[in-house]
């Protein structure tokens, strides 16, 4: 049996006395597309922050390709081949779209903190950045500041920065949040293309997207995983229906009120 891309062992996180993640065990196999779903406040984003190193776990361990990364800093984890996007768009607003993507690949291309090489002469970087811009559909926005892009374009750029470094584990935090139907469809196609042959972990609220893309789904409720299974079986899972749909109805009621 091969080592899973990500393995969580009894992962815990509390803020003060509030427990947000309460002992999560999970294995995400290499090359699978794994979605994490759950009602609002279940701790999905916190789980993402823990794996990517934004938060330090209060207990438990995280393994990336079998290596313990718990407590490591975000940039160290990124260098080990894990790249993530953010729910709230997180780009370099005053730099050009092209430069945003290029910044995403500088480290992994091995240029590190070099102050003796000129970026404009690194043809490989330029070509690869342009290929990614083409892929995310922003080639014609190449030279404008990222901060003035439309919301959907910024979401696409967010993904572009995330995949630029060629990481083999990609984590997307609500990649289609706030998008229209047609924009979502485009985003799904994009995600399908870019995650080809890679491990994809994503948090997503849009069930259409989840069941369309995911090979496996985990359901997180109040900081605990209540199920991890294939989409068909999750659909039929009683506990999931109760926990998830129950609160979803509540959420709808609250939205109506």
């Amino acid at each position, binding site marked *: 049996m091969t080592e899973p891309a990500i393995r969580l062992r009894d992962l815990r996180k509390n803020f003060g006395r509030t427990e947000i993640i309460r002992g999560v065990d999970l294995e995400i196999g290499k090359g699978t597309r794994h979605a994490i779903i759950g009602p609002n406040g279940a701790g999905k984003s916190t789980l993402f922050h823990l794996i*990517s190193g*934004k938060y330090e776990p209060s207990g438990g361990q995280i393994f990336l390709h079998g290596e313990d990364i718990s407590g490591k*800093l*975000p*940039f160290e984890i*990124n*260098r080990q081949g894990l*790249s*993530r996007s*953010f729910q709230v768009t*997180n*780009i*370099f*607003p*005053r*730099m050009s779209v092209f*430069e945003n993507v*290029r*910044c*995403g*690949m*500088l*480290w*992994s291309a091995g*240029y*590190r*903190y*070099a*102050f*003796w*090489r*000129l*970026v*404009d002469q690194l043809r490989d970087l330029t070509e690869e950045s342009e290929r990614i811009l083409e892929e995310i559909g922003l080639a014609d926005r190449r030279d404008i500041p990222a901060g003035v892009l439309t919301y959907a374009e910024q979401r696409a750029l967010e993904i572009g*920065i995330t995949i*630029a*470094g060629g990481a083999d584990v990609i984590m997307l935090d609500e990649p289609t949040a706030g998008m229209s139907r047609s924009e979502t469809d485009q985003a799904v196609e994009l995600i399908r293309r870019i995650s080809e042959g890679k491990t994809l972990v994503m948090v997503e609220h849009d069930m259409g997207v989840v069941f369309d893309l995911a090979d496996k789904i985990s359901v997180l409720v109040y900081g605990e995983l209540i199920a991890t299974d294939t989409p068909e079986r999750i659909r039929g899972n009683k506990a999931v229906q109760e926990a998830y749909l129950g609160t979803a109805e509540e959420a709808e009621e609250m939205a109506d009120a």
Partner: protein
Amino acid sequence: MSVIATTGAATTRRATFRRLAVWLVSAAVLLILPQIFTSGLAVTVMNQMGIAIVFALSYNMMLGQGGMLSFGHAVYFGLGGFFAMHMIDWVDQQLFVFPIYLTPFMGGLFGLFMALVIGSFSTRRAGTVFAMISLGIGELVAALSLILVVFFGGEEGVSGDRTTGPGIFGFNFLQDIEVYYLIAVWVLVAVLFMYLFSRTPAGRMANAVRDNPERAEFVGYSQRTVRLISFCAAGFFAGIAGGLFAINYEILTEQNLNATTSGGVLLMAYIGGIGYFIGPIVGAVIFTLLQTVLSGYTDLWVLYVGLVFLATVLYVPTGLTGIMMMHVPAWRLGRLRSLVVPYLTMVIPVAMLFCGLVGLLEMFHYRNGAPTGEVEMTVFYVTVDFTSPLPWAVFTALTLAGGYLTRRLAPAVAASFQAATSYDAKGSSA
């Protein structure tokens, strides 16, 4: 595909050529300047400008490029200068042989070293904490400079003789004009390298960390290391500027590393525009002119500089360069000419407001400080009797009328600017 590739290569080649041309023209301008401005004063001012340009650009490597606001950048300028001054002294005492014209480089290395030491803990954070640490370190070093007499020379500072040591092409830097050419070469080289730094991976990531430190961490970069590298580079070039200062003035004192100098470089960079590479150059030129020329006319020049600075922060955060750059779209669209008339109509009221205010301030200042019996003052070639109510009335009227007209005309000027720069205005369809 191949067509695209060749045109791509052609554009790159053209861009490279254009960039090269900019540097060649700059070099030519530096070479010709002393032929145009031949007076001794002009050479002094230009030398000071050159030093200020390197210093302000080094400052902007932190503020504009890296998002680090420092209130203590003079530390690296001063320490580099003191070290270079000592080098000159050591050469003079024949401890070793070293060409004087290279001492700025040694000053730079010393600045780099100090930046490495101090930056190792101060660059942990950006923002407010970084700013306060830089202020604290600045005060610390300024106070220490009066205590550690061996290195800083106490109140008198350290002085030396730049004509010592081996010369170059027969120059021994006895004349200011020889120093001018030395500074010009150093400015060109330093500016070139500072520009190139901004185009390296480290320089690009400095921008990225400025924009969004968190995101930079998630693409593999430690924000702290990125900042430290910019900080050290800034210290290095500030040290070079300090070394040039040592050669030019042959003396360094506590004043060269205290808070006033640190504040001055912030003013220069900001007034010029921290968002553009050439911004600090513009700022350094203008600030030096104010400092040397305006101070000859009025005691109140610092007050005026302060007013200009505050107005820049409030109304033109992109600085003077930002104002120039605002007009690039209009120029590209060929509509700059449509702005001439609106701007000219604006000139008169603004000039009235300006003259009125300056007149009032100067008269008040003279009345406060004039010896008894003195009733006349001359400022900017105008002589008035500040005890009679007439000039007061005239200047007040000028201020009020100028202010009123400026307010009235501003919307129209703004509208014509809008029309000249927006793509969808009529006329753009052609």
